[in-house]
């Protein structure tokens, strides 16, 4: 776990601790939310709150200081004593709360021996990764895409991330630990860059050493259970035709909406792995696109990337990257058909492409927003069939200027958005 991981963990757990404390100490926030929608639900933690609230007030001695997560009464080491000293306290209630809201963790520093120093205790050692990639023409991952896992780790989920400067803190378990590095190949869930195993120097051997140990893992693209795909080495040119088709891996689309491609909207700006690299072509998703390429004698991976040039749709303007498995070509090979699964890399975090694509941003809702907002909730809940043109009565003091709702219902009815269409509202 590096510093970023530790800081995130500490901050989030601190937040959980704070929320848990509010459950006991600060009723209004939860009560207000309940009162708005589900008054009865607030009764759920009331008994716990009342009991523990008295306890906490006793602990705090009536002070007005805001409770700090780090220094609040429940974070003190004398919690049991304090709890037992308060009238009417049920210690098991406090203990239960403590168990549910653990204190923020302490961050281990590189090179620091874990406090739970046991025979298998890991000592963090910082090494620098200088990767070597075998094969040509494949998208090489950023350094921080590379992760390491230990062959001796009892927890197979333990993953160590490489920082952007190539350093990574790895725990050395005695002198037997072997690390294996991998990195994703975008768009290919079954393929990855995979390194040869690396044996780290013993932790004791590095003590008092300020020099970073460099490791040079050699990466090879691997698919499935480990079949190696050479992925490069242009052979004698075997010219043949490949029909490329595309499909989108949009499983990460917001709210499960599906988009697909707009025909003719994809310009492939980079074609690597072949002599015809960097050729800009357009793939028509529905019919495919036939390219004449200099084939390879071995099965290889083809990476394409580009931009969805469409002006509409959830992925308008988004970068995409795709990869396909290209079969080996040989003299006399029949034309092949390759489907490239592409995945969008939309990295504009606060832009909602779904909203932008279905709502005309130049026509914002006019005054009456809040009233219509409530309607949108009901619309999204499936209460109205907008196509039937129901009449809405809007409690709204401001004049409405042709305010209406436009819904883009999908299967789950999760996605609705604004539009100022032609329907009219009236003020009351």
């Amino acid at each position, binding site marked *: 776990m590096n510093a970023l991981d530790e800081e995130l963990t*500490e901050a989030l757990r601190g937040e959980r601790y704070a929320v848990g404390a509010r459950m006991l100490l600060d009723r209004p926030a939860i009560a207000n939310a309940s009162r708005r929608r589900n008054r009865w639900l607030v009764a759920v933690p009331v008994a*716990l709150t009342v009991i523990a609230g008295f306890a906490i007030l006793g602990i705090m001695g009536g002070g007005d200081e805001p409770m700090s997560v780090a220094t609040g009464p429940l974070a003190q080491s004398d919690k049991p004593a304090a709890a037992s000293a308060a009238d009417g306290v049920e210690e098991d209630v406090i203990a*239960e709360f403590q168990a549910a809201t653990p204190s923020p963790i302490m961050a281990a520093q590189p090179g620091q021996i874990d406090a739970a120093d046991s025979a298998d205790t890991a000592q963090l050692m910082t090494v620098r990764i200088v990767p070597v990639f075998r094969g040509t023409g494949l998208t090489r991952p950023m350094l921080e895409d590379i992760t390491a896992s230990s062959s001796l780790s009892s927890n197979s989920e333990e993953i160590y*991330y490489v920082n952007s400067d190539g350093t990574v803190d790895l725990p050395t378990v005695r002198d037997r630990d072997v690390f294996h590095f991998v990195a994703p190949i975008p768009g290919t869930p079954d393929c990855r860059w995979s390194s040869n195993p690396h044996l780290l120097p013993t932790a004791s051997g590095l003590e008092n050493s300020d020099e970073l140990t460099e490791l040079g893992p050699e990466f090879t693209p691997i698919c499935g259970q480990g079949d190696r795909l050479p992925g490069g080495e242009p052979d004698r040119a075997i010219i043949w035709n490949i029909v490329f088709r595309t499909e989108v891996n949009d499983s990460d689309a917001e709210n499960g909406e599906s988009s697909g491609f707009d025909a003719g909207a994809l310009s492939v700006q980079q074609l690597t792995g072949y002599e015809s690299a960097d050729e800009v072509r357009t793939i028509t998703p529905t019919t495919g696109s036939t390219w004449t390429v200099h084939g390879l004698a071995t099965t290889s991976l083809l990476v394409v990337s580009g931009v969805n040039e469409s002006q509409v749709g959830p992925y308008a303007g988004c970068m995409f990257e795709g990869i396909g498995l290209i079969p080996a070509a040989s003299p006399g090979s029949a034309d092949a058909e390759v489907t490239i699964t592409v995945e969008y890399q939309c990295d504009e975090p606060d832009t909602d492409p779904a909203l932008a694509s279905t709502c005309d941003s130049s026509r914002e809702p006019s005054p009456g927003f809040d009233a219509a907002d409530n309607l949108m909730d009901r619309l999204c809940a499936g209460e109205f069939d907008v196509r039937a043109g129901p009449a809405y009565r809007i409690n709204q003091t401001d004049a409405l200027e042709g305010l209406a709702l436009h819904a883009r219902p999908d299967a789950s009815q999760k996605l609705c958005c604004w539009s100022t269409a032609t329907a009219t509202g009236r003020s009351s």
Partner: protein
Amino acid sequence: MSDFEDFYRDEFPSIAVIAGTTAGSRGLGEDLAQEAFAQAAQRWPEISQLDRPGAWVRRVAINMAISRRRRFSAEARALLRLDRPQQHDLSEHRFGRSTLWEAVDRLSPRQRAVIALKYLEERTVAEIADILEISVSATTSHLHAARRSLATDLEGTKQ
């Protein structure tokens, strides 16, 4: 209903933080978690039969957080057009460095949800994918993109 009460008491803090991280506000996260639990309560006989009711409530809370943020964006644009300031004050003191939360808030809502599930609850990529109903590869992609973005944003802000 007692099993629901236990469920609520055990799960509320975590789900509130996950929703709050996704929505960008701890207080809003509590409201959203409350709403998600309300939905669960209304359908508790059905929800309680799921393998992991907690995953269901997390999914509902995260979806609501994403929808709420989308609505805030539209509202903010409308208010700006009307020359009225945004009424939603999302600023609040949160645990840890403010620069960390500012960087987290710049992530996409989905990335924030992944970060919260990963680092608050130490969930595996497969578990996160299951909760968010997205593929494992998409989850991995979100996680990598989020970490890269955070590392870039936080570079040089260490005190």
